[in-house]
């Protein structure tokens, strides 16, 4: 490897990274500022006051101690459900051609452009009719709902690329449809699984309206995002509290990301030698 370009690459990347996460650093630093300092010394990244009361406030207002666990339970369960149903669906759609496949694809594909963020009423009614109001089960079901078209397509287009021979070999070894999928095909799709986990994690973790509306009579079942929104009022906005809450809520996601990252590099070692 040539040395000079490498240094150059790192310098460029470091500079870019700094610019990239500047807003985030700004948020972290704001979470240690007082409201006054937040406005007076907006530019500075080093807080003068190191005010930790923001975190305390975010913690109590956001009811982190009780909401955090709800968030984890809901998010983990939803991710597991979504992974199972989308990878299975992607497998069937990507690997096989069967009667009705075209219709399924067309309907799923056409649905993704309908903006449904504001039509919460039908979903609410459904959960209520199923008797799942005010239960974590209801939130989990509603959060797992939807077509997950994007995940299905990601899986389908990945599975399509897998050499047919692998499957044939498995069939010859006597593996049935399900076992071929579970033991041969699915383990190959780690990178896609990683993407799906991360993306679903972010959505569910930050979801606000559904958990709020579905727990109207049992606030103890609410999730973190619902608690965090309490910091943003109609007339009064607790900026530094929001920054602190944002910082706290970010931590688990970064951990998850660091953790899943290796699936994107796994097996690539030695692949691109540039």
């Amino acid at each position, binding site marked *: *490897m040539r040395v000079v370009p490498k240094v150059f690459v790192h310098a460029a*990347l470091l500079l870019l*990274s700094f610019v*990239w*996460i*500047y*807003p*985030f650093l700004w*948020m972290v630093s704001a979470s240690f500022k007082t409201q006054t300092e937040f406005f007076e010394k907006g*530019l500075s990244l080093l807080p003068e006051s190191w005010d930790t009361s923001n975190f305390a406030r975010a913690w109590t207002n956001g009811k982190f101690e009780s909401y955090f666990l709800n968030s984890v339970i809901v998010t983990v369960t939803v991710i597991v459900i979504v992974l199972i149903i989308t990878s*299975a669906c992607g497998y*069937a*759609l990507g*690997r*096989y051609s*069967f*009667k009705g496949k*075209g219709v*399924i*694809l*067309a309907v799923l*594909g056409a*649905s*993704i*452009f309908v*903006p*449904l*963020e*504001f*039509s919460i009423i*039908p979903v609410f009614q459904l959960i209520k009719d199923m008797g799942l109001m005010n239960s974590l089960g209801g939130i989990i079901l509603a959060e*797992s*709902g*939807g077509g997950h078209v*994007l995940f299905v*397509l*990601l899986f389908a287009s*990945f599975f399509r*690329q897998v*050499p*047919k021979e692998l499957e044939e070999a498995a069939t010859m070894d006597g593996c049935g449809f399900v076992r071929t999928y579970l033991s041969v095909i699915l383990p190959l799709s780690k990178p*896609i699984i*990683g*993407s799906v986990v991360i*993306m679903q994690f972010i959505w569910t973790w*930050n979801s606000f309206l559904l958990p709020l509306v579905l727990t109207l009579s049992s606030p103890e079942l609410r999730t973190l995002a619902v608690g965090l929104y309490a910091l*943003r009022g109609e007339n009064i906005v607790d900026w530094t509290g*929001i*920054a602190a809450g*944002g910082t706290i809520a970010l931590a688990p*996601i970064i951990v998850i*990301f*660091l953790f899943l990252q290796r*699936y*994107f*590099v796994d097996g*690539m070692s030695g*692949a*691109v*030698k540039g």
Partner: protein
Amino acid sequence: MAARWPAARRLSRRPLPHGKEGILLSQTTIAQPGREIAVRRTPRSRKIALWCWLFVAPNLIFFAMFQGWPIIVNWYYSMLDWSGISSDAKFIGLGNFKELIADPYFWNAYKNSFLFMLGAVPLLLVLGLLAAVVLNNPLLKLAKMYRTLFFIPVVTTASVVGIIMVYIWGSEGAVNYALMKLNLLDQPVNWLGDPHWAMFTVILIYVWKNLGMNMIYWLAGLQSIPRELYEAAKVDGSTPAKTFVHITVPLIVPVGLVITLLNVSGALKVFDMIKTMTDGGPFFATDVVSTYIYRFAFSSEIGLPRLGYASAAGIFFAFTIVLIAVLQAVIRKMIGSAGRGRGA
């Protein structure tokens, strides 16, 4: 969409240029993308078809319950003169749609949605791929750290980003400070508050926020390329650039199409970021269809909200996009088959 896939597959099987037999060979034997397994009418394959449906069913059920059903309900709402609050819904057929089409501000929002998509998606795709390729290099030290850093904006909630960006792009924020220090600007611009710059700024911030996710998708795509191919290319003495163009690009096109679709639908439905940063302003300069819908569905000054009308806007928007997609697929298919006809 189903029509797009064969096109992608043609691309990926395009023969490689002169003298690269080694690669060609390895591609056909190892990386030949598995073909769909057609289900013929034998007892065994009937069993497989059954399995296929069993595999598809759970997702379809979740779709039907939480997306299909709400869409149908929305269709129905869109034909009502209804506030969403009282029980005084009146069926008015296509009345909402007529009113919608006559409203120049709906078309302004419609135009802005596409402008936003056209501005953001190409940037996201190209920069995302670039980031993925650079940071996919296992020899690059600290790649893991860079990837994490690039990913951070993705996980920061939109409302927090909105608040932060108002300051960073404000008249005394970091952006103006840096640009003035670099002598690129003689007086501060309120990027989000200036009708000429607001759309540009919102697009840039959206790209910033979502680039990390695109990087992940592309990384997943790059991962699906068998490493033997790269080794074969290296044996053949291909340069990294050539390897990228001739091996990487054709093989990630199928995943690339999915990523594109994902970005297009995401950008066309953008809401949180615009709502928190500009709320569609200044004077509708960044008003997109979802903020237009929101305005009619929830915030009304004197009268009641208009859920029926808002639903109509959503349905109309989605319907026209699907129409455009279908038309485009049909036209491409026609051109494609005409081209192939000549070639043969």
